[in-house]
């Protein structure tokens, strides 16, 4: 895109662009347009950031603490659950609470992302129907919005770790590759769920029920070790793998981190392939569905 410079007036000139849309597209032109969508979306990163921030700001408009209510409600929840379950499971609270704080915050991010991924395109209906906009911008917006929420909740983890002095040390840096994989997965998932839920409106309630079940099946409030012999089967749960690759290093190395990485990479590849296959076919139709 080139912008002609004109200094003498305040006129703003639109960027030059060209468009070539053909029906009955071959697979290669479908892929070309989908890649073009991602490239144009990446160029609009500033818009995606602005929209993500705005969503958070408007959600907490007029409240004194603003988004820090997120921190407080997560903190209260973790403290309450921590005391309750450490009694129920008869566990040492100084060991259990840091685990719970970390798990709960990370799970909150994953489940909100899955659930909000469903409305990625339907919530942007008015914009999608009035201007040609790369769909990847809306996927990035959902990711950024949830990352901001995660950023606020990290405070709960930091405080809990400080209280029980459970600092992960240098090994904790191993969580970073895991978080990078999360970013890729998040974009793939929001593109897939966003398009799929726009077409089939029954999917979102199904997704929400599944996530409810996954919360109990995945070791979020209970520890993997409590499963005993069944622990070896945990990597079959994609949410466990994804959770563990970030949580393991921060808690000083879970026993299953290596297996979890294998599973996480495998499931992520599957997700990306399915998401790309669906997005390339659906991209041109999303506007008609919302």
């Amino acid at each position: 895109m080139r912008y002609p410079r004109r200094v003498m007036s305040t006129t703003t000139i639109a960027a030059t662009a060209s468009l070539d849309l053909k029906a009955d597209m071959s697979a290669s032109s479908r892929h070309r347009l989908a890649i073009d969508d991602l490239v144009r979306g990446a160029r609009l990163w500033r818009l995606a950031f602005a929209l993500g921030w705005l969503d958070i700001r408007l959600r907490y408009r007029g409240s004194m603490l603003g988004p820090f209510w997120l921190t407080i409600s997560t903190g209260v929840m973790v403290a309450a659950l921590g005391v309750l379950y450490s009694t129920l499971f008869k566990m040492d609270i100084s060991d259990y609470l840091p685990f719970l704080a970390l798990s709960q915050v990370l799970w909150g991010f994953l489940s909100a992302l899955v659930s909000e991924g469903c409305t990625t395109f339907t919530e942007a209906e008015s914009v999608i129907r009035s201007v040609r906009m790369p769909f990847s911008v809306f996927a990035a917006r959902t990711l950024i919005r949830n990352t901001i929420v995660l950023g606020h909740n990290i405070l709960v983890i930091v405080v809990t770790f400080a209280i029980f002095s459970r600092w992960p040390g240098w090994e904790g840096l191993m969580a970073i590759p895991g978080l990078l994989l999360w970013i890729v997965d998040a974009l793939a998932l929001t593109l897939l769920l966003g398009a799929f839920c726009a077409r089939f409106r029954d999917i979102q309630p199904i997704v929400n029920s599944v996530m409810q079940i996954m919360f109990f099946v995945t070791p979020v409030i209970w520890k993997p070790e409590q499963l005993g012999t069944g622990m070896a089967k945990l990597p079959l749960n994609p949410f466990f793998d994804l959770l563990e690759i970030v949580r393991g290093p921060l808690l000083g190395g879970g026993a299953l981190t290596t297996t979890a990485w294998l599973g996480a990479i495998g499931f992520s590849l599957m997700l990306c392939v399915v998401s790309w296959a669906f997005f390339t076919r659906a991209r041109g139709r999303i506007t008609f569905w919302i």
Partner: protein
Amino acid sequence: MAVRARIEVENVSVWFPLYHGSSRSLKKMVVAAASGRLGQDQQQRVVVRALQDINLSLEQGDRLGLVGSNGAGKTTLLRVLAGIYEPVTGRLRVQGSLNALLDPSLGMNMELTGRENILLRGLYNGLPKPMLPRLEEDVAQFAELSDFLDLPVRIYSAGMVVRLGFALATAIKPQILLMDEWFLAGDAVFLEKAKHRLEEMVRGADILVLSSHQVEIIRDWCTRVLWLDQGKIRADGAPQAVLSQYLGTPLEIA
């Protein structure tokens, strides 16, 4: 500098699938039988044929007016030209920067201040950062918001909201300007200043496509008129000829 503006529409059809709601209700079947515009695609889904076999070619300097009754496909055609609806059959080629004035409140958020709304619009248009202050200056100056610029749009008077919306929509000058009829219906256009700004934008555009019910505006601004009827081109030609056919009577020369 920029490429030569061009629009090429070849055999474009757009069908709306009816997925949600009672798409196969009896009432709709009756309406369908009456109008002949509902059909079924290869997968036996009920679709509305919003546009059928549109052929259109626009070059630099063309000013096209779209006329037709409500639901004739005027706005759909504008959306196709803007690349929002991708054609189901045929091919669309557009060269040159494009601005479609379709939704008066695009990206306007009542909770944000005027200034934030201006910046957001700049971001929607993918303007690079150095161009944002200029956009802000231009819009703020035209909308005459002065001190209100840093207050939420929610507390603006109706007139101020209209002025801001109008200033935003007309701030970015494209080579190809697509304009829906709502744009000419607002109070803002009756202000001499707004009229001047809009005419300047229209003059500055290489190609104009305008959809309107107001025959006078089409006659004054357009060099070619397309009459859409039930998603098909009924007539295409010089404003005099098509408009008199459309109105059923010879057009009076004002």
